């Protein structure tokens, strides 16, 4: 049984902060196929296109028929834990700081034997299910979970090391003026965050939901305007060391394409808030979070970007916004690489049109702010890196995989 995580004691202000160390991250290029699956929380292994053999560890030729066609496919993650050990001596600092560390070998029903991390509730000889997770260095790893969920299983130390669970963490919602920010604050509070900092720009300007958000016990309103470097820096200076998760809810959605419908002023505002705002967050909070990546059970864990799925391919109806979102997506990849040494995840949550005022004229399906918030919490709990929320986002993703050019044309119709 997992021991439920106790609310962490206040940090000793005189104690040195443990610096993050990295689990071993080099992987073969082929093994990066697992990274893609782990980023989305899928369980895939290579399946031979010719003889259907399920292959692991990742290979470049099928060990049954030597076929080079070994695509990664979703497979049944269930199997039996055949043998386990508890590593107590290790050559890597990362594990040295975390031993004893259980690992085991799982015989998957689909064939392969898998060396895997073990959740505390797994036992030798019992059925387990494997999940693929990204470790603190963003590399894919296997973790065996008990076949059925167990109480408080999310609090298992080996699992929590691979997730960004908001429980007991301190979260910053960058913009609480909009519906998404407010839904996110509520969701974080419900998910057990101890403090939910909610950034409010232009506090002199009233906004709907003001009273309701302040009524949430964990919420602490902070002045924050992502278009104002000083404001971001000031918050980081005051609270940066006690923010473990940032969820960037700042939005600036205006319909209009590149040729017309969008003024340069408006485009600049979008860019200023979304792209440069992300950069300001990164510059102010990134280094602090990276340093706090191993700061106990509530170590700094994640920056969540809420992105339009049209960051992936432009929808000219929202042409300028799509372009700015693409810039944000690109920046997030840089950010991801830069924060990886600290074990900080950059989570990109893609959604189609939201059920908010700026998508008012669009027909359904749209993503309700509460649904988006729920998806973000789930992503953090599962340690995901890429999330597609709602039917439109899923649809765009699927069509991109099949024929990106066709999608470009169809969105431009």
């Amino acid at each position: 049984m997992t021991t439920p995580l106790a609310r962490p004691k206040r940090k000793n202000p005189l104690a040195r902060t443990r610096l993050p160390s990295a689990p071993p991250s080099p992987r073969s290029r082929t093994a990066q196929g697992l990274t893609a699956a782990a980023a989305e929380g899928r369980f895939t292994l290579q399946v031979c296109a010719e003889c259907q053999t399920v292959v692991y560890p990742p290979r470049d030729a099928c060990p049954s028929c030597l076929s080079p066609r070994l695509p990664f496919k979703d497979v049944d993650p269930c199997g039996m834990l055949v043998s386990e050990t508890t590593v107590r001596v290790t050559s890597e600092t990362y594990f040295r700081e975390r031993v004893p560390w259980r690992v085991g070998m799982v015989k998957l029903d689909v064939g392969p034997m898998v060396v895997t991390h073990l959740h505390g509730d797994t036992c030798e000889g019992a059925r387990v299910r494997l999940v693929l997770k990204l470790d603190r260095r963003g590399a894919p790893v296997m973790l065996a979970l008990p076949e059925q969920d167990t109480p408080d299983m999310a609090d298992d130390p080996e699992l929590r090391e691979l997730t960004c669970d908001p429980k007991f963490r301190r979260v910053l919602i960058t913009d609480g003026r909009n519906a998404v920010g407010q839904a996110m604050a509520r969701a974080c509070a419900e998910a057990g965050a101890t403090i939910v900092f909610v950034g409010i720009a232009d506090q002199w300007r009233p906004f709907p939901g003001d009273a309701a958000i302040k009524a949430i016990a964990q919420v602490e309103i902070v002045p924050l305007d992502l278009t104002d470097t000083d404001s971001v820096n000031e918050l980081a200076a005051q609270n940066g060391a006690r923010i473990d998760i940032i969820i960037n809810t700042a939005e600036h959605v205006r319909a209009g394409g590149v040729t017309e419908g969008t003024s340069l002023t408006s485009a600049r505002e979008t860019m200023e808030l979304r792209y440069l705002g992300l950069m300001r967050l990164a510059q102010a909070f990134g280094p602090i979070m990276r340093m706090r990546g191993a700061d106990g059970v509530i170590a700094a864990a994640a920056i969540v970007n809420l992105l339009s799925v049209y960051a992936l391919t432009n929808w000219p109806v929202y042409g300028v916004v799509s372009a700015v979102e693409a810039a944000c997506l690109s920046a997030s990849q840089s950010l991801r690489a830069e924060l990886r040494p600290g074990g900080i995840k950059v989570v990109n949550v893609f959604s189609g049109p939201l059920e908010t005022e700026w998508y008012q004229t669009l027909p359904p399906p749209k993503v309700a702010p509460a649904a988006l918030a729920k998806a973000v919490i789930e992503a953090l709990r599962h340690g995901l890196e890429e999330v597609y929320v709602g039917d439109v986002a899923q649809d765009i993703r699927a069509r991109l995989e099949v024929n990106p050019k066709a999608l470009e044309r169809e969105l431009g119709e």
Partner: protein
Amino acid sequence: MMEKSSPRAASTRQGYDGVVVCVPVSIPYRRYSTNSAHWWIGRALRELIAGAGLRLKDIDGLSVSSFTVGPDTAIGLTQHFGVSPRWLDHVPFGGASGVMALRRAARAVQAGDADFVACVAGDTNHVDTFRKTLSNFSRFAQDAVYPYGAGGANASFALIAKNYMNSYGARREDFGKLCVAQRANALVYPHALMKKPLTLDEYMTARPIADPIHLYDCVMPCAGAEAFLVCREDAARSLNLAGVRVLATIERHNAFQGDDMQIRGGWARDVDDLWAMASVAPADVDFVETYDDYPVISMMQFEDLGFCRKGEGPDFVRAHRFTNDGDFPHNTSGGQLSVGQAGAAGGYLGLVEALRQLTGKALGTQVADARLGLVSGFGMINYDRGLASAAAVLARPQ
């Protein structure tokens, strides 16, 4: 139309008549060395040539095994050492390197491709060498083993040992018995790094490394080199060298892929060939040098090489005494568990020791009237199991 028959023909292994192995060389191990692998290999080569009464230019065959000689391989070493062999081999098979180098060299000499093959294994051990070797050991290890606790071989063999214990009822005491006996053998072996007697109680209460592996199940990585010379029997005689005869050898890679976990090594597949070729039976050998990283693997070797049946390893261990004065002298110099594991030289340790035992030149306790010895090698845990296995039956000079 005739059905296409399998290309595999019935194999008839040819003997190694007229080929001998001589000049056992061991460069005393050191826990850590600031010298390079090249330095260690060079020293062993020099001692080998001196011991054989040859000149450098007489060496026309060279076989090298090393984990830490990179970025060089055997070819780079020819220029480094100023040798000009007409036969050259690089044998990167870890714990199976000794026997595999031997059988390749023996065939080269037998075929006239070379007259004097110097077989050398050496590795250095800088302070961070072990970790680097572990983290880069193989692609499968990098992708699918090392990220899981980075326990290295300890963790991998822990899983194998645990499974073996679950399957056949082996107990830690059984493994401990082998370790304690090897330590007793090592106490008089001059090169052994472990010089303190070991009791079963100490073994049992040693700190856990990766359950069920505890401290004394593990070898100590160190720097060192081992070497031997392979040549024709008549050439050895003319140099006044005691030449150990090669009665039989086997090697196998990636055997039993269908086994979920390693419960046996490749020996099991070729063991009948081994004894048939040697024309002796397991009971005939006077001592056994197994690859002892870890004791569970020694136990598997007793089974897979025919000393007992599969699953009887634990009982076999309980029924025998493994010291050099016992009824089953085993790892007579102390093995890697007590001497240390000098990288690929660990794969030579048993073979070099067997040469000394069979020529009556044991540096430690001489096994009485040692006429026949079995040397076994095992190596390269690529993913979840050791892939390489080899064994040789050796006989003392006629």
